[in-house]
């Protein structure tokens, strides 16, 4: 029982507990906040997986920008109503739950049973070094994945323009 195992148990437990809380909460504001804690747990797990850069990016972009945007939309449009008590289509919901859990069991079985695939390891330039993986990721982004990088920049611009146009009031 080393310290890493304890940290993993805490972080994974936090993430899963608050993910369940997010699904169970009735008001959207509390769901968003539960999801923020879940993302923090995932960020801690990423640090354990030798990806501190990704952990920081998750907190900055996901927890710090995307979910803040959710919160703003909820607060500005006053969408914080509680879910209705009357359930509609209970049989369908029950079947959906069973199917999702069955899929989950299947996925769990597959991921835990599969071994490392028999392909060659990464090229020398793409190995995760033991000390600092940020230069490696940076170099990959600008060499092998340059097209995807530039394309994602165009995508973000298109998304920003699209969001502006879609949420504009119609000029009658």
């Amino acid at each position: 029982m080393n310290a890493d195992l304890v940290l993993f148990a805490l972080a994974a437990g936090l993430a899963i507990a608050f993910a369940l809380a997010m699904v169970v909460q009735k008001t959207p504001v509390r769901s968003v906040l539960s999801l923020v804690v879940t993302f923090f747990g995932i960020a801690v797990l990423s640090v354990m997986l030798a990806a501190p850069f990704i952990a920081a990016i998750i907190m900055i972009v996901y927890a710090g920008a995307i979910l803040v945007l959710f919160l703003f939309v909820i607060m500005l449009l006053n969408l914080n109503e509680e879910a209705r008590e009357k359930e509609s289509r209970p049989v369908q919901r029950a079947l959906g739950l069973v199917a999702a859990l069955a899929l989950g069991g299947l996925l769990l079985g597959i991921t835990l049973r599969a071994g490392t695939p028999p392909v060659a390891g990464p090229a020398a330039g793409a190995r995760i070094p033991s000390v600092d993986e940020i230069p490696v990721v940076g170099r990959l982004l600008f060499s092998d994945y340059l097209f995807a990088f530039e394309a994602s920049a165009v995508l973000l611009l298109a998304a920003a323009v699209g969001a502006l146009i879609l949420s504009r009031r119609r000029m009658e």
Partner: protein
Amino acid sequence: MSPLSGVAPMSVPPAAFLAAGTLLFVIGLVGALLKRNALSIFLSIELMMNAVNLLFLTYGRMRGDAASHVIVFFVIAIAAAEAAVGLAVFVALFRARQTIEVDRVNLLKW
């Protein structure tokens, strides 16, 4: 699961990370299927994407491959773009129908 040679062994078994990631994915899936509020469905989808990020990072760590970090980086960027446009769609929907529950958006129903 044996790691590739030349990669430092993980102190926590990778199966644990994979199980955690899959469990988060399933919770997100359940949320996406069972919630009625469009925002809650969207939040569950974001959870699913982040669970997949965790799985990518685990496999990358097992192989010692930094390409997994690059893939996760792009997934996050695309999720940001999707969130922006999705929320704009919800705002427009709310203005048109005064509700955001997916059950009530049924004008095209027979």
